[in-house]
């Protein structure tokens, strides 16, 4: 318990530093650029003209009151909305380095999802063994080589800091893990296919504080390897894990900048109200 708290503290400090560097150094590479993004559920416009840059190897947090469209926005990045009828995108998300608009009609959402991973609000392991859960993405990609799959699974489980807990029980059903372990398993599942961008949709909202600290720690370490976009309802979490923060309200991007700046010196009144807890 004590150790956890210490770890928590150290992350917090580490992140303040990260945020500072991010805001001061312009030498970051662009991973994706959002230009004039609109989104409709039927006639109902859920996202309005969002413009934003996502830097490589950084953590960008999306915050805002519930219903502000932050999850909707996140799900545009891997075209999850295509699974529903009667939805429509407008604008562009240009994915770097090749600058393809991943919202274009000519782009196959399946191809997008092969490069952009996602971790969901509630841990959603498949009703399969721990091993098969992580191997799933590889199998879907037609990987047949057993030893290669085994290697990738182990590597992904290590990266998700869960290897030591599950190495003896890889054939166990994933449902037998605790909630926090399940979520790290889902992260491993996403990592196994080496995504370029990893989306987190409120990944800790269903977890207890201990498990939450573990995941936050993990996110902090993962950004060396993969660009991260995270939706969170928890402002402290955004402050702890992210380099940049975007505040959204009623489907619009109100404010976007280095995390420290957004939290300590918000430019917009709405952002300040939200951060100080005037609505939520």
């Amino acid at each position: 318990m004590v150790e956890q708290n210490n770890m928590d503290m150290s992350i917090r400090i580490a992140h303040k530093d990260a945020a500072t560097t991010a805001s001061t150094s312009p030498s970051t590479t662009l991973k994706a650029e959002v230009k004039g993004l609109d989104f409709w559920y039927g006639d109902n416009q859920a996202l309005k003209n969002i413009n934003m840059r996502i830097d490589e190897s950084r953590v960008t947090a999306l915050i805002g009151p519930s219903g502000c469209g932050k999850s909707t926005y996140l799900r545009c990045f891997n075209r999850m909305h295509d699974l529903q009828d009667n939805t429509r995108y407008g604008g562009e998300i240009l994915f770097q380095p090749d600058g393809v608009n991943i919202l274009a009609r000519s782009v196959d959402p399946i191809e997008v999802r092969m490069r952009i991973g996602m971790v969901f609000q509630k841990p959603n392991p498949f009703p399969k063994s721990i091993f098969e859960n992580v191997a799933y993405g590889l199998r879907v990609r037609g990987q047949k080589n057993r030893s290669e799959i085994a290697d990738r699974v182990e590597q992904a489980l290590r990266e998700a800091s869960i290897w030591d807990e599950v190495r003896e029980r890889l054939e166990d059903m994933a449902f037998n893990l605790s909630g926090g372990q399940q979520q790290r398993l889902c992260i491993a599942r996403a990592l196994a296919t080496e995504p370029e961008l990893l989306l987190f949709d409120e990944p800790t909202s269903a977890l207890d504080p201990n498990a939450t600290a573990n995941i936050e720690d993990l996110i902090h370490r993962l950004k060396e390897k993969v660009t991260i976009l995270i939706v969170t309802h928890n402002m402290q979490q955004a402050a702890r894990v992210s380099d940049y923060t975007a505040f959204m309200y009623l489907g619009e991007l109100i404010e976007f900048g280095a995390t420290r700046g957004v939290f300590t010196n918000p430019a917009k009144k709405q952002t300040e109200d939200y951060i100080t807890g005037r609505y939520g």
Partner: protein
Amino acid sequence: MPADSINRLSDAPGSDNRFAYKPTRHIGERFIEAILFAVSMTAVAVTVGIVGILLFESASFFDQVSIVDFLTDTQWTIMFADKHYGVLPLLAGTLVTSTVALLFAVPVGTIAAVYLSEFATVRVRETVKPTLELLAGVPTVVYGYFALLMVTPALQWFMPDLPGFNMLGPGLVIGIMIIPYITSMAEDAMRSVPMQMREGSYAMGATRLQTSLRVVVPAATSGIVAAYILGISRAFGETMVVAVAAGQQPNFTWDPTEPGATITAFIVQVALGDLPHGSIEYQSIFAVGLVLVLMTLLFNVLGHLARMRFREIY
């Protein structure tokens, strides 16, 4: 009822309690509850009745016929002078028609369910699901007509040697009859797999087919097995199609192109004739009825075990 004790506590003698129980209201409520309870017990009574009657009448049957003969004799000639009481021909008839039906209905029903649940648009699904209910409501005797006068002649096109009465045609028609049940129930099972699980798979870049076969179907196995068990029970119990189109001729064969009689067809055949109460024919239909119930029960138990094995935990 805990309310009783509360009542007694507060209802001290002599006290003028305006919250006291109104005995009339209380009695009325109890009376209604008792009636509703009695009505519910009908379900139990019917089960007890079925089991009791089948056992009782079968017992009289087995007083006259040895169980060994019943289970091993390969002839069932109860309508003739030289009587044999071997249930095997009837059992074989039931198994042959049911197997034909299931070989047809299980793949078709499952694929249709996957299509409806994972591929079809909401509109298609909302149109097709009620249509399946309509199909399930068509009287079975009409399907008998279909088997005898439409399916068998059609099959004779490909198989000129097929006799007019055979088990293949009725088997296929029973298959068509149980497809709506299997599709509808398997689709329900797949629909109830949580969306997050599908999203997890799609987010990995899986296609619809991969998501369906590798995630949704395994997750819904328990419900799909239940759908198959329902299908098997229906196939075993189906009566009119075989009574009309399979020939009502007890025939110990595993060849579906031959005529045959199922347990149910035999019961109908005997019941259509003059059936003196207490005769050996009368008792025999209860004995074979017992066999039918035991078969259905066996598969339901197997299905239950399979479902326990695959039960979903999400």
